[in-house]
C-alpha cells in the first residue's frame, strides 16, 4: 500500500515535471462561452497548462495596460481585432511574422484579422475568433407583408421598400431597427452599407478621412428617409445598444443589422421568432460585412513564448476550429472551414462565415476615438444625419472631426 502511494506520488511528480509550465491567457467576457471549453480541452491533453482569466470587455484595455506596466503581462491575449494596431504601435506585442508565415494554412486565415495584425510590415497577432455582421429579418413578417421570405433585400431600394411594406402591417410593427445611440453597433452594422456601395470612411492606409463622399451620404440618406417615414421605432433614437438585439426578439421588427452571435441567441432563447440571415446590401447591390472578432497574440514580457505559440497554433487546427469554435456557435477563422458539419446543421451560419472572407475592418490606431467612443465623431455623425439637421451638415462636420483625430499625436 505504502509502495503504491509512493509510486503514485512519484508519478505525480513526473507528470508535473513533464507539464513544463503554466501559461496565462486573457480573454474578454464576450468570448467566455466558447473559450472555457476550449481551454478545458487543451489542459486535458496534458502538457502545458493554460490558466484562463476572463475580463469584462469594457475594462480589457485598462487591465492589460496596468498589467504590462506592472511587469505581469499574461503570456497570451485574445483581443478585439481592432485594438491590435494600437497595441502594436505602443510596442506591446511580440513579433510573430515568421511563425505566422510558416503556418500551412496561413493563406486561409481571415484576411481582415491578418491585415489588422500587421503594423509597419510586421505581424503581431493571428485570428482567434470571428464575428461578421449580417442582416437579420423576420420571415413571419415578410410573409404577412406579402414578401418572399427567401428573398431578402439586395439593395437600398429593396430594403426601403420592404421596410415600408412591413411597417404598413400596422400596430407596433416597424420595418427596420438600429441602435441610434450606440457607436459600436453602428460601426458593426452601418459601415458595411457604405462599403457595399463602394465607399469608405477612411483611406486605404487608414491615415486620412474620406467621410464627405457620396457612398457615405447615400447610406445616411437611406436611414434618414426610413426614420422620417416612421419605418423605425421612435425608441431607436435613444438606444445605447441595450436593444441592439432585444428589439428584434420581440417579433415586431422586420429587419435589422446584427451579427453572427445573434443566430445562437435567437435559436436558444427565442425559438418562436422565425428569422433569416442575409448579407448587408449596398446601394445598387453587392454586399459587405464588418469582419470583427478577436485576434490572439503574445504580449511583450511573456516568459514562455514557445509554449504560448504552441497553444495559439493548436487553436487554429482544423479539429479545434470545428469541434470547439463552430460547435459552440462561433465562426471558424479559416475560410477553408467556413462550411463544416455544424454549419450544415444550420445553413444560416454560412452567411456570416462567408462574409468574413470578404468582410472589411477599419484600420486605425485611433479606432477607439473615431468609432467606439459613444461621444465621438462617428456616432455624432449618424445622430445628426438621421435624427438631426441632415446628411450634408453631418458629413461635413464628421470629416472635420475625423481629420482632427487622425492628425493628433
Amino acid at each position: 500500500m505504502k509502495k503504491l502511494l509512493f509510486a503514485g506520488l512519484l508519478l505525480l511528480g513526473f507528470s508535473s515535471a513533464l507539464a513544463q509550465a503554466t501559461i496565462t491567457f486573457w480573454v474578454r467576457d464576450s468570448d467566455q462561452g466558447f473559450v472555457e471549453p476550449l481551454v478545458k480541452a487543451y489542459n486535458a491533453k496534458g502538457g502545458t497548462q493554460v490558466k484562463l482569466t476572463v475580463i469584462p470587455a469594457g475594462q480589457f484595455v485598462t487591465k492589460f495596460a496596468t498589467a504590462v506596466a506592472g511587469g505581469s503581462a499574461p503570456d497570451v491575449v485574445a483581443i478585439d481585432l481592432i485594438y491590435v494596431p494600437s497595441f502594436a504601435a505602443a510596442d506591446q506585442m511580440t513579433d510573430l511574422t515568421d511563425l505566422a508565415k510558416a503556418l500551412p494554412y496561413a493563406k486561409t486565415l481571415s484576411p481582415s484579422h491578418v491585415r489588422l495584425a500587421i503594423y509597419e510590415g510586421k505581424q503581431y497577432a493571428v485570428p482567434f475568433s470571428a464575428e461578421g455582421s449580417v442582416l437579420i429579418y423576420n420571415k413571419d413578417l415578410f410573409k404577412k407583408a406579402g414578401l418572399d421570405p427567401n428573398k431578402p433585400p439586395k439593395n437600398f431600394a429593396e430594403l426601403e421598400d420592404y421596410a415600408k411594406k412591413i411597417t404598413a402591417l400596422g400596430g407596433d410593427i416597424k420595418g427596420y431597427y438600429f441602435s441610434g445611440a450606440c457607436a459600436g453597433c453602428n460601426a458593426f452594422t452601418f459601415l458595411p452599407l457604405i462599403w457595399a456601395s463602394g465607399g469608405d470612411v477612411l483611406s486605404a492606409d487608414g491615415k486620412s478621412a474620406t467621410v464627405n463622399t457620396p457612398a457615405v451620404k447615400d447610406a445616411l440618406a437611406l436611414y434618414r428617409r426610413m426614420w422620417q417615414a416612421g419605418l423605425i421605432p421612435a425608441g431607436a433614437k435613444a438606444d445605447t445598444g441595450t436593444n441592439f438585439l432585444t428589439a428584434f426578439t420581440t417579433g415586431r421588427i422586420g429587419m435589422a443589422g446584427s451579427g453572427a452571435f445573434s443566430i445562437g441567441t435567437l435559436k436558444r432563447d427565442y425559438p418562436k421568432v422565425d428569422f433569416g440571415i442575409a448579407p448587408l446590401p449596398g446601394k445598387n447591390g453587392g454586399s459587405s460585412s464588418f469582419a470583427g472578432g478577436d485576434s490572439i497574440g503574445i504580449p511583450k514580457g511573456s516568459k514562455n513564448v514557445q509554449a504560448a505559440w504552441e497553444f495559439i497554433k493548436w487553436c487554429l487546427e482544423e479539429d479545434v476550429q470545428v469541434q470547439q469554435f463552430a460547435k459552440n456557435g462561433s465562426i471558424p477563422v479559416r475560410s477553408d472551414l467556413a462550411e463544416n458539419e455544424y454549419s450544415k446543421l444550420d445553413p444560416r451560419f454560412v452567411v456570416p462565415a462567408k462574409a468574413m472572407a470578404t468582410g472589411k475592418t477599419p484600420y486605425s490606431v485611433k479606432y477607439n476615438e473615431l468609432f467606439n467612443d459613444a461621444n465621438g465623431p462617428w456616432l455624432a455623425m449618424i445622430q445628426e444625419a438621421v435624427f438631426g439637421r441632415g446628411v450634408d451638415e453631418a458629413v461635413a462636420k464628421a470629416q472635420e472631426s475625423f481629420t482632427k483625430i487622425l492628425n493628433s499625436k
Partner: protein
Amino acid sequence: MSPAQSARSPAVPRRRLGARHWAGLLFVVPSLIFVAVFFLVPLLMTVWMSLHNWPLLGKYSFVGLENYQNLLSDDTFWSSLGFTTKYTLLVTPMIFVVAYALALLVNRAARWVGIFRTIYFLPVVIGLGTSSLLWVWLFNDQVGILQTVLYRLSLVSEPAMGSSGTALAAVLVSVVWKTVGFTMILLLVGMQAIPDELYEAAKIDGASPWQSQRFITVPLLRRTFALALILSVIGSYLAFDQFYIMTGGGPNNSTITVVYWIYRASFTYFKLGYGSALSLILMLILTAISIVQLLVLREERR
C-alpha cells in the same frame, strides 16, 4: 483629584505633556498613514502625470505644462463644466425641497412612521450604479414601465433619453429618488435637536405652524443646511455613474459631466496625463467652491 496630586502637578507638566504629545501622535499615525498612502501619494502622482504625455500603453514623455495649455482651449471641458454646474444648480434645490418635505412628514411620533423613514431611506443603501441601471430599464423604450406610462398619458412622444431636456430630467428624477433619503435623515436629526420648548413658546405667543417653520425650524437648521449643501454640491460636481449609465453622455453629447470627460480623456483617448491635468483642475474648482460656501455660511451664523 486629591490635594496631594494637584500640589505635585506643576512640577511634572512639561514631561507629562511631552509624553502625551507622543502618545497622541501615535494614535494619529494610522490615519496619517492612510491619508498619505491613499490621498497624498496619489495626488502627487497625479501632479507628476499631468506634466507628461502619458498614454495608457507605451512610453511616457515629459511635456511640461502642455496639458494645461490644451485644457484652456478644450471646448468639451468648458461645456462639460457648464453642464455640470447646471446639473448641480438643478439637483441640489430639488433634493432639498423633497428632503425637507419628507423630513417634516416623518418627524412625528405617529405609528408606522419608522416604516416610512425606512422606505424613504432605502434607495440610499443601494449603489448609484445599480440604481442608474434600474432607471435605465424603467425608461427603456421597449419594456420600461415608466416610459410606457409616459407614452400612454401622451406626455412624451419620444423615449426619455432621446432629447437632452428629457434625458436630464430622467437623471434628475433618478438621483433625487436615490439620494433624497440621506438629506432627509440629516434634516430629521437637525429637527429633532431643536428643543420642543421653542415650539411651545411660539404656540403660546400665537404663532401659526408656518411661522414656527419660518422663524424656528429653518434658522436653527442652518448648520445642517450647510453640511447637506456642501455634501450635495461636491457630490453633484463629481457626477459620473448616473450619466455614464443612463444617458451615455447623449443625445448629441449634451449630458457630459466633467468627470465623464476626464474618464473619456483617460480611457477612450488613453491620455492619462491629460486626464490627470483635468482632475487637478476639477479638484481646485471644488476646493474653491467649498471655501466660498463655508465662508458664506460662517458669516450667516453670526
